[in-house]
């Protein structure tokens, strides 16, 4: 857009945000935040959920209006009232949840909303394809503009999002938690892309809560806590420990001490399980494993390899088409969610807002969502409000749920406190088996630490725990044994204490078919 930016002296900021303040009722989301990003810089914004990172970039992208403060591009003050303003000023954003139309092609998605027309009516597809090819080549993207987006992997879809921004000639690119859905290999690839973009003079704002990633990719790191900038660091002069402490405001234990597990007899046994998805395709193929009392079995895998359907089949939300599930020796294949709950199954679902909570209900109702029908919360079909209140007060205290009262709507709580609601409810049941699906997705460091500790405590109390997560770090950290799921099959089960991050990552990406490393791991399991 503006070729002179590259010529600006090193250090003169491409973007400056000065004293940005944003108030929401009862909350100071941004409190005089200063941020400057230089041309060619990868600038990481680090902070817990609810710290104000997203508010800040929303202001930059025109999705929110600041109450005070100003934004300068190349030293000139600008007003950004909408995302189209932002794009016109050369600011692009890649959201955590991709904004792509699955049935359209890559090219169609990219030009959507910014179509080059021949005449008044027709979209100039050839011109669009030509420009997209040129861009892809320039930045080393391996993308077929004619491929339909739904056929692409998550990592490639993300690159489509980036291309979409580049197509609009942005110079400043904001990425909101870009690695949350990627495998380690895909993460490396996207980092290569980002470095290349930066080398070409683009400025990149990278939002993350993963400390080692921030350290490996960023040129500078700005840490935000409770709406304020609490520090700015250069990776070479800081450490994960320091960043975590800045972020949380106290010393944090970054990895839980898992300790020795003392597994006893198998509680959850799955044999030859086959499950079909909504479209009738078999997405879980002949899966078998067992989880013993007092151990955590982690299932790693890139999202969409059948984990969802596996978990649904184990929790009574989907009927398996074949195979057996035994819980404490009893056949529970195809049993209902209600039956399984009564038999001692606790389940923290992956999508807490869709499955685990009713956001428009108050906190106390959510704390009894799976036990409202049982003593002491109900007698017959009459709710016992006093018992529910008493339990809610106890749960709020014991699980440190930060809420003004038990009657506030769940939707007003932060993500961490919402998840603590689910955890408080499920962990407090009389448990034999606990199934955790992405239990800390999108949570801040403090909440993750808390939930991990609770999980270990439950294990040591004798629960058989199945942890399913696309976050490899979490699986590695908590699991006593690690299984990798690839295209509906569990391709290996290995020992958690000796598991190697790269090997597991490779298995997640390829299933171990091409490399033969899967066999080694299988023996280890």
């Amino acid at each position, binding site marked *: 857009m503006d070729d002179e930016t590259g010529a600006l002296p090193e250090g003169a900021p491409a973007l400056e945000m000065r004293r940005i303040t944003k108030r929401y009722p009862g909350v100071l989301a941004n409190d005089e935040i200063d941020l400057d990003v230089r041309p060619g810089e990868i600038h990481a914004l680090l902070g817990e959920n609810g710290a104000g990172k997203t508010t800040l970039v929303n202001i930059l992208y025109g999705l929110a209006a600041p109450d005070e403060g100003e934004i300068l591009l190349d030293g000139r003050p600008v007003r950004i009232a909408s995302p189209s303003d932002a794009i016109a000023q050369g600011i692009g954003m890649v959201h955590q949840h991709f904004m792509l139309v699955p049935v359209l092609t890559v090219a169609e998605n990219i030009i959507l909303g910014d179509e080059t027309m021949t005449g008044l009516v027709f979209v100039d597809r050839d011109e669009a394809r030509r420009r997209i090819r040129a861009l892809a080549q320039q930045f080393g993207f391996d993308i077929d503009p004619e491929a339909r987006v739904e056929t692409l992997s998550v990592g490639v879809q993300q690159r489509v999002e980036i291309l979409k921004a580049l197509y609009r000639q942005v110079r400043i690119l904001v990425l909101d938690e870009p690695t949350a859905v990627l495998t380690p290999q895909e993460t490396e690839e996207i980092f290569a892309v980002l470095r290349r973009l930066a080398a070409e003079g683009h400025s990149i704002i990278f939002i993350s809560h993963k400390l080692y990633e921030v350290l490996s990719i960023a040129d500078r790191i700005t840490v935000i806590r409770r709406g304020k900038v609490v520090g700015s660091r250069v990776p070479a002069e800081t450490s994960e420990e320091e960043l975590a402490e800045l972020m949380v405001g106290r010393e944090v234990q970054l990895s839980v001490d898992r300790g020795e597990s003392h597994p006893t007899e198998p509680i959850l046994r799955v044999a030859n399980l086959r499950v079909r998805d909504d479209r009738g395709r078999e997405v879980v193929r002949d899966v078998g494993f067992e989880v013993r009392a007092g151990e955590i079995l982690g299932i790693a895998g890139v999202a969409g390899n059948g984990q969802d359907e596996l978990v649904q089949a184990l929790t009574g939300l989907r009927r398996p088409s074949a195979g057996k599930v035994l819980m404490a020796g009893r056949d529970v294949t195809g049993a209902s969610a209600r039956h399984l*709950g009564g038999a001692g199954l606790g389940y923290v679902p992956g999508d807490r807002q*869709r*499955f685990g909570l*009713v956001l428009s209900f108050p906190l106390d109702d959510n704390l009894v969502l799976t036990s409202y029908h049982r003593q002491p919360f109900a007698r017959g079909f009459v709710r016992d409000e006093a018992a529910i209140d008493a339990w809610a007060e106890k749960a709020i205290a014991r699980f440190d749920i930060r809420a003004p009262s038990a009657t506030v709507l769940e939707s007003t709580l932060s993500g961490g406190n919402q998840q603590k609601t689910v955890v408080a409810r499920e962990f407090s049941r009389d448990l034999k088996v606990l199934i955790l699906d992405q239990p800390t997705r999108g949570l801040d460091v403090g909440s993750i630490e808390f939930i991990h500790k609770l999980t270990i405590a439950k294990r040591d109390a004798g629960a058989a725990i199945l942890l399913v997560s696309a976050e490899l770090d979490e699986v590695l950290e908590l699991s006593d044994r690690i299984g990798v799921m690839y295209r509906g099959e569990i391709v290996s089960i290995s020992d958690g204490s000796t598991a190697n991050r790269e090997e597991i990552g490779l298995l997640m990406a390829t299933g171990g078919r091409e490399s033969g490393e899967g066999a080694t791991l299988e023996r280890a399991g």
Partner: protein
Amino acid sequence: MSRLRGLWAEARPVVAVPLGAVVLAMIVASVVALLSSFFTEAGFDPSLPFKVFVGLFGGAFGGLDHIVNTLVNATPLVLAGLAVGFGFKAGLFNIGAQGQFLLGAVAAAGVGAALNEAPPPLAIGAAVSAGTLAGAAWGFIPGALKAWTGAHEVVTTIMLNFIGASLVAFLVLNLLQAPGFSFARTGDLGNAALPNAGFLSADLGRLHLGILLALLAVPAVWWLLYRSTIGFEVRTVGANPDAARYAGMRPGLLIIFTMTASGLLAGLAGATEILGTSHYMIASYGTSVGFDSIAVALLGRSHPVGILFAALLFGALRAGAGPMQLEAHVPSELVDVIQAVILLFLAADLIVRRLFRLRQAKRGIEAVETATETYGRKLVT
């Protein structure tokens, strides 16, 4: 005072939009009345809106007989409004209150006429039960269709309204027609008629037992929704069906239960209307209760107490329409305009919020959006 203010702060997010819609509808009605005066012999009359509302208010509340009239008009709206609102709570749009009301009415009329010489408690009990059961059955059908086949309740209930109206005509013209009248109608109710307060004063002659039933139904439905596990399940299915399944609830059964209970309430509305006010059923019974009740439920935000107030407002509008026409010489149909515009503003609640600068706290947005979601989604799909 401060407690009052606290209560308002609590209620405002939920109540503000309905109140705003009512106020705006009255302003629009005023403009319509003003414009219409250009075309009358009397000519433009700037004081007409004032006269309209004096007429309406006087007609609704200006005297014991007027108040009774308001209550009598509100009674079926309370019950049918609860019916529709109960459906909304489960995320179901029961447009079939009309048909359920008619079926309840004809069943009560038929059974009441057949038992008109039985002892009053038996005759009334049987007639009321017949009406509620008929309504419940007419609600069960779309519920079962939805649960078992996925047929959308909006489509099936609309169809069942037509079928219900035809069934009523068939029954009145054939099985239930009483001899000795110049037109087709059901027989006299005799002992099955609901007792009224006429023994106290002639003005209270229309004040029938059904009003008490409607007033009792409000806390009963509230209790069912907010104090029973079934109500919790109904609300969970309505607010988040996925979470309901996760929690081990059975959405299919709950849909059938909700539609049946909804039909039961609408049937009760029909039964009390016949047994308390109309006293017999004709082949082409004209009523808009089934449809007005949708507006009542929306205006009342699906909450039993809100529905009570909304029904009273609509009842007052109905009661005041005639006197308004007499006093202000404005056609009573202006009341329909007010009702329709209220509904419009409720559906387009963004307009109301903009005009009244309703900056909603997060809590409020949720409460309002749940309601909007409930009917908005159903209207579109």
